[in-house]
C-alpha cells in the first residue's frame, strides 16, 4: 500500500542523505520526496511517499525514527489528511485545436496557464497526485514537452498538527 510519511528533522547538512541512504541501503522504494525548512529554520519537513506491506512500512518508520536527526514522524495515511502536489507542464500548442483543448482542460482541472509562447503553453496545477495523473492522461494527443512535479506534501486534516 502507498504511504505518505511526514518527517520533522534537524535542518542539518547531510540529514537528507541519511534518509535517502537508508532507503537505498535497505532496498525500500521512494516514490517521491519533498523537503524544505519549516517556519522554525532549525527544522526541516520532509514528505516521503513510499509503498510496501505493513511489515515493511513498520520497519521503514522504525528505521527512520532511529536516525539521530529525526525529531518526529507521522504516517499521514493512518488518518484523514490532505495531500497536494504541484506540477508544471509545458505542451506544444502550435495547432489552434490543441490551444483550445489545453485551455479547456486547464480550466476543468483548475489549472493556470502561466507562460505562453507562439508554440507552447505552460500550465501550473496543484492537486492530489492522482488528479495530476488524470490531467496528464486527459491531454490525450496533445504533445507534452516537459513535466515537472514537486513531489507530494501532506498535512493532517482537522486540528491535530505535527509539531515539535
Amino acid at each position, binding site marked *: 500500500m502507498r504511504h505518505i510519511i511526514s518527517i520533522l528533522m534537524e535542518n542539518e547538512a547531510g540529514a537528507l*542523505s541519511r534518509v535517502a*541512504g537508508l532507503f537505498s*541501503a535497505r532496498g525500500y522504494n521512494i516514490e517521491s520526496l519533498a523537503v524544505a525548512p519549516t517556519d522554525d529554520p532549525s527544522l526541516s519537513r520532509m514528505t516521503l511517499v513510499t509503498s510496501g506491506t505493513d511489515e515493511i512500512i*513498520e*520497519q521503514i518508520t*522504525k528505521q527512520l*525514527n*532511529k536516525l*539521530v536527526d529525526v525529531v518526529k514522524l507521522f504516517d499521514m495515511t493512518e488518518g484523514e489528511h490532505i495531500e497536494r502536489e504541484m506540477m508544471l507542464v509545458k505542451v506544444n500548442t502550435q495547432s489552434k485545436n490543441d490551444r483550445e483543448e489545453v485551455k479547456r482542460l486547464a480550466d476543468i482541472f483548475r489549472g493556470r496557464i502561466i507562460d505562453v509562447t507562439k508554440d507552447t503553453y505552460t500550465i501550473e496545477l496543484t492537486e492530489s497526485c492522482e488528479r495530476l495523473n488524470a490531467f496528464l492522461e486527459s491531454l490525450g494527443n496533445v504533445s507534452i514537452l516537459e513535466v515537472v512535479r514537486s513531489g507530494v506534501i501532506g498535512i493532517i486534516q482537522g486540528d491535530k498538527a505535527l509539531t515539535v
Partner: protein
Amino acid sequence: MELTGAEIFTRCLKDEGVEYLFGYPGGAVLHIYDALYQQKDVKHILVRHEQAATHAADGYARSTGKPGVVLVTSGPGATNAVTGIATAYMDSIPMVVFTGQVPTSLIGNDAFQEVDSVGITRPCVKHNFLVKDVNDLAVTIKKAFYIATTGRPGPVVVDIPKDITAQKAKYAYPKKVTMRSYNPVIKGHPGQVKRALKMILGAKRPIMYTGGGVILDNASKSLTDLVKMIGCPVTNTLMGLGAYPATDKQFVGMLGMHGTYEANMSMHHCDVLIAIGARFDDRVTGNIEKFCPSAKIIHIDIDPASISKNVKVDIPIVGGVSNVLKEMLKQLKETGEKPGKKSQSDWWKQIEEWRAMDCMKYDRDSVKIKPQNVVETLYKVTKGDAFVTSDVGQHQMWAAQYYKFDKPRRWINSGGLGTMGFGMPAAMGVQFAHPDKTVACITGEGSIQMNIQELSTLKQYGLPIKIINLNNGVLGMVRQWQEFFYEGRYAMSYMESLPDFVKLAESYGHVGFHIDKPEDVEGALKEAMKIKDRAVFLNFITDAEENVYPMIPAGAGLNEMILI
C-alpha cells in the same frame, strides 16, 4: 583563555575520561598530534594500520564497556578505518572515531588526501558529524560520546578539518547534552513486562535466547537470577556467550548454525521463546519459515527496529535489557512464584536426551592435533579465566564451542560483520584495559595475516598476548563449505607460501613455538602462560580435514542439524 581546536580536542578527551586513544598520524591531524605530545592525560597508542586502531579500540570497549576511541588522518587514514567501524557497528559497540579532514576551504576540491569521510561512513555508523566551526568542537565531541554509549550503542565518527584544529575558541566541556531528536527508551513498559511474565509462568517448554545486548547492558547478573528462578534452559548467541555461566546445568550451549544440538532442538520445540538483547540473525534462525513453529515469542530489546524485523513477535518490550530484567525479577518476586527446574521436568527430561547425543564429541585419540583439543586445553590451562579474542573462520567456532565462558566480556569476536583480521588488534585493546590478565587470540593462518603487522605494536608496548594459531594450512571455513556444497572443488582455499610463523614472531622480538604433536599441546600452552613481557606465537599444526560440527545447512530449520 582561548585554546586551539587541537588543545580543545585533547581537553575534551581528558574530561570525558578517555584513557587510551588508538591512532596513526598524518597531515590533517598534525596539530592534534602536537597537542597530544604536550599533555599526559590521554595515552596515545600507535598501531601499524588504521584498521587495527579501530579493532583495538573495539576490543577495549567490548572488554570494559567503556567507549573505544580512535584518531586517524584524512583520506587513506579514514578509509583504512572503515572496516573496523563497520565491525563495531554490526555488533553495536560504543566507539568514537576522529578522522582528520582537509581544511574547510579545500573541502570538495579533490584536495590531497581528501575523501568524504562522513559520506563513506554514513551507512556503518550510528551517527557522524563534520565539525565546521571551532566553537562547536567541544559540544560535538560530547554529543559523539553521548550517542555512542547510550541506547543501542554504536560507533560515531567526528570529522575534523585541519583549520578547525588551529583556530581558537573558549573551552568549556558540557557536563550534559540533551538532543530533542535523540531520546532512547530505557525503561520497559511495566504492563508489557507483566504480560510477558504471565506467559512465561504459563509455559510448559520455555527457553531464553539471549544475545550481545545482555552483555552490552551489563545485565548478566539479572539474567542469571531470572533463569534460576524460572528454571528454564538458556542459550546464548555467538555475541552473547558469557552472559550466562557456560558451566551451569541450565545452559544448553550456543545456538544457531554451529550451535549445540540441544540448544537448537530446544529452540525448535519450545512453546514460549524469550529473546533478550538478540536480533534473530539469519545465522541463528536458520530457515525463517521453519523457525520455532509452536512458540509464542517475547522480545526484549532497546532497539524498536530490531523487534519484528525478521520474526513476528507476540509480546514486544522496548527498553534497556538490564532495566527490563530487573523489573521482571521484581514482579516475579511479588507474585511469590518460584517455578524452578522441577516445574518443567518433562521438558528437562527431553532436553537431557538431546544433550546425551554429545554433539561436541571429536576424535580425542587422533595422531594429529585436533583444533578442538587446543581450545579445550587452553580452557584448562587458563582455568577458564582468560580473555579470548578470535578471528573469523573455523577456529572462531571452535573457540566459541569449546571455551566455556562463565563471565561476560571475556569472549571478543566479530560476530556480525565476520571480519578476518580482528583478533590480534582487538586483543591489544583488551590487554591495555586489563594489563594483568591473560589475553589469548585464537586465530587461523589466513586471518592472522590480515593484520600481522601488529606484531610490531605488540613489541612496542610489550603486550604479552598469546596468539593461538590453529594452523590447518587452509582457509578452513571456506574449505569446509567447498567440501560440503561444491563437491570438493577447493578454489583458492589453500594457503600456499606460508611464512615461518615462529621466525616471524622472533624477528619482532617475540617468542614463537611450533607444535605439531597432540602430546605437546598442553606443555606449550603452560610454557606460554609464563611469558609476561612479550607476545607468544603458538603455531599449532592442526588436522586440515577437521570440520565444524554440528551444522545447520543453508535453508534448513534448527531441527535439521548435521551431526558428526
